């Protein structure tokens, strides 16, 4: 009987240890703790080119994460990318004339959406759209531009990325 009890206790300890290890892996090695901190609201932004922007890429202000990319879709009529940003409710005081820019962390790192605050007294609400956007900087275009300019026949090929800041929503 005592032998049976010791089996049961040891087995219980083993199972608890196993699940503790799983909980440790789930919370400490992943950013699951950073997700879903309270409610969020959705803000749209249109980009001419999103580059390699992925779902759940961070949205940052001044380098601090305030939300994530909820969806990236092609707008059929305008043929530009409609990006939905899901921003934490705690950060509700963002001026509605702020601009969204797609940055790359590091030279070849992942892309994220940086929001540069504007000066409007009106704040962003759920479903609003950021009018001022700037597309992802394409490393290939940059290299292409550099090569073309370097060889001196810049007029033959139009520079691929010009006027990326555009008032996409209005006009």
């Amino acid at each position, binding site marked *: 009987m005592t032998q049976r009890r010791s089996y049961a206790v040891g*087995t219980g300890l*083993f199972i608890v240890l*196993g*699940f503790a*290890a799983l909980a440790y*892996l789930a919370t400490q090695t*992943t950013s699951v703790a950073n997700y879903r901190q309270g409610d969020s609201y959705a803000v749209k932004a249109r980009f001419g080119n999103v580059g390699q922007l992925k779902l759940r890429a961070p949205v940052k202000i001044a380098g601090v994460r305030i939300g994530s990319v909820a969806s990236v879709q092609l707008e059929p009529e305008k043929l530009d990318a409609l990006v939905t940003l899901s921003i934490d409710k705690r950060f509700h005081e963002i001026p509605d004339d702020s601009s969204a820019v797609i940055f790359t962390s590091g030279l070849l790192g992942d892309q994220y959406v940086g929001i540069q605050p504007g000066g409007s007294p009106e704040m962003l609400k759920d479903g609003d759209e950021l009018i001022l956007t700037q597309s992802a900087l394409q490393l290939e275009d940059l290299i292409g531009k550099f090569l073309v300019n370097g060889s001196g026949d810049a007029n033959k090929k139009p520079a691929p990325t010009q006027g990326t800041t555009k008032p996409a929503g209005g006009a």
Partner: protein
Amino acid sequence: MNGRFLRGGYLADALAQVGAAGLFFFSILGALPKSLRYVRETVRQVWFVGAMSLVIIMTCGLFVGMVLALQLYHTLSIFGGTEALGTVVALSLLRELGPVVTALLFAGRAGTSITAEIGLMRATDQLAAMEMMAVDPIAYVIAPRFLAGVIAMPLLACVFNALGIFGGHLVGVTWLGIDNGTFWGNMTANVDLWDDVVNGVWKSLAFGAVVTLIGVFQGYTTPPTSEGVAYATTRTVVFSSIVVLALDFVLTAFLM
């Protein structure tokens, strides 16, 4: 008689083995409800294949994590990317090394003992005696061991991964001097709960089922001689290792 006949015989034998193992799997599944009466036996088996394997799993996990950090540090320093060490150690362990190495150790530590135990039961006619006493040996002996393997394996893999990441941290941060915050920050930024952690748990569940199935099947169908039990134990390790590595490729291709 001649070589051609023998080869044909081997191929037919191998196919028959695979078929018999598949049928055996279904008879275990069929006996699972009946084996619920023997919960105590299942608990004892979880203790035996799981808790008793903890020491080897923890030691190996620690050393695998440590050597992984050393090797990756060397490689990453060539590209000037040593700050990615935490990410690479965690992803390699969670996605690949944790489930696979645990399954191989599990086959050596638990699979062999299951085969030898059941094989000896077969050789000493204990299984036949149970049948005569109207105790279904599949429900009383096989199913609890199978269930215990399926329960224990993912938990062991999680312990292995946790110790491996601890070992990687030990080498990377304490010894090689990577910043602690960089190590964890890059890891948490790039490891996904569902794509990486849960993915590894699925893999280890599948490996646990396969390794234990091979173990009980080899034991149950062993020729009832001491030589037969010896061969069956060897075959358990060989077949388990091959199937785990092959299945790992298939599962990775599907789960990616």
